[in-house]
């Protein structure tokens, strides 16, 4: 056991750091992009606060296209764009954009369904009180749905951890990369098992924290 840690501790530790870095950076950006996408979908719906058929149809369509691409395909498909935006297509920098393009529409969809769960009567009540639409959206709807939005974000974060495993293909490192390189290509299963255990623990922690926060915010 101590031999294993001396031999592999540093490698795994570094990989864990890379995974956490990739996940957290892209997670934050995906939230910033994804929640407004969800809001846009709900607001421009035919029964939303600002119905707009064109905006709704186009965003709906684009999101569906992005959501139908597996991450590994998306990663290579948008290489030219990544090059322009990030200046590089390799390393953690090179993987942030594809991960965001992967996760943001996903978050958008999840947030959309959470916002749609709000009783339309509640929104009407706030309209009847003379409160502006933008305040209704950000201070009432997002607030009322925050418990389920937290649950959405938990799901998205776990999805992101999964996607980062493929980031090794463009040299971004991470736990998935270690498991693949050492465990599969060099046939050292103990390294693979160790990374798997760490991944499982990571996901368990995330899900539990998400559940606790979500339950605290939901009162119905």
């Amino acid at each position, binding site marked *: 056991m101590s031999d294993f840690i001396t031999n592999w501790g540093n490698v795994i530790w570094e990989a864990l750091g890379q995974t956490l870095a990739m996940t957290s950076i892209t997670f934050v950006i995906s939230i910033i992009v994804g929640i407004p996408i969800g809001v846009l979908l709900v607001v421009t719906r035919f029964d939303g606060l600002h119905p707009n058929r064109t905006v709704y149809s186009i965003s709906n369509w684009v999101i569906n296209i992005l959501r139908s691409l597996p991450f590994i395909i998306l990663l290579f498909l948008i290489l030219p764009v990544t090059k322009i935006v990030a200046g590089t297509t390799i390393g953690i920098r090179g993987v942030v954009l594809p991960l965001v393009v992967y996760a943001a529409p996903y978050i958008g969809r999840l947030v959309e369904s959470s916002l749609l769960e709000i*009783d339309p009567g*509640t929104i009407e009540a706030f309209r009847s*009180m*003379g*409160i502006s639409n933008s305040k209704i959206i950000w201070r*009432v709807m997002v607030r009322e749905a925050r418990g389920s939005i937290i649950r959405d974000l938990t799901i998205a974060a776990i999805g992101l951890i999964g996607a980062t495993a493929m980031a090794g293909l463009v040299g971004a490192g991470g736990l998935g990369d270690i498991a693949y390189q050492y465990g599969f290509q060099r046939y050292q299963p103990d390294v693979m098992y160790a990374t798997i255990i760490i991944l499982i623990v990571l996901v368990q922690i995330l899900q539990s924290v998400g559940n606790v926060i979500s339950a605290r*915010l939901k009162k119905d």
Partner: protein
Amino acid sequence: MIEFKNVSKTFRGQQKNQHVRAVENVSFKVADGEIYGVMGYSGAGKSTLIRMINGLEKPTDGDVIVDGESVADLSKKELLQLRRKIGMIFQSYNLLVTATVAQNIILPLTLEGLDKTEAEQRAEKYLKIVDLWDKRDSYPAQLSGGQRQRVAVARALAHEPKILLSDEATSALDPETTESILSLLLKINQELGITIFLITHEMNVIQRVCDRVAVLDAGVIAEEGPVVDVFTQPKQGITRKFAGVSDTLGVPRDILKPYAEKHRLISLQFVGQTANEPLLAQVQDKFEVTPDILAGSMGYMKREPYGRLLVYLKADQQDQFDGALEFIRSQDVHVEEVEI
């Protein structure tokens, strides 16, 4: 204060045959400090009507005038200002489920730009008025339907509106809770001087609180006026249906047949305190007829008591009968002969 001038509202469907005329050429006025009720079956256009007062719906034709201004002519900003003067409560309460009772009142106030301490003071004041101050830290899910509606009333009052709109506010409540909400509305109307406009399909709501009523049938006003007049002497079939009066007071006609064959049936209606004198005893003495009470009912219209009697009048001569009817009419009692 609120005036509808030839208001119509059509909802446009995809095709022309899918157009729905929800409200058609409706006109009426609601005075300051009054409780005005609109009654109708579901689908009669009540919800559309009430939503045109605060601009949640726009009329297709005609004008809705609130406080001297046509709602349709207001700019976006002015419309928000107007809505702040008009509180609204709903059948399904429409509270924030993730906020406590107090937060439910404070949040909309702060969104309106009130500072936090003032919002908190108002929450305390109005929660005390609706008698729920001790529940301030509860969540709506922990309250009963009647308590939730009282929170909604406090939320509406906290904006200190001039008008309160009530959209079927008691329709989801049991009779006892309905009564507590209705007496709260009366209290608000009397003590705070707030004009109340309500829509309902429940006759007892109109009877209990309204000064005037409009009966809406398929988007058209069938009858309008003071509650006592409209419901003691309903002119339209739909009003009769709501008032729950068959002219036989619910007694099946085949039971009445044997009476009607020999003598006459009349129905009497008393409103207010006209029934102090023993009317039927006087009729018996004066005209030598024998009145027999077959059915009766008592009720209240807001504060006015009213009663109905179905009477079997044994008279040998036509002029005795006519005289008796004449005399009853002279006592301010509404009387009608009932044909079987």
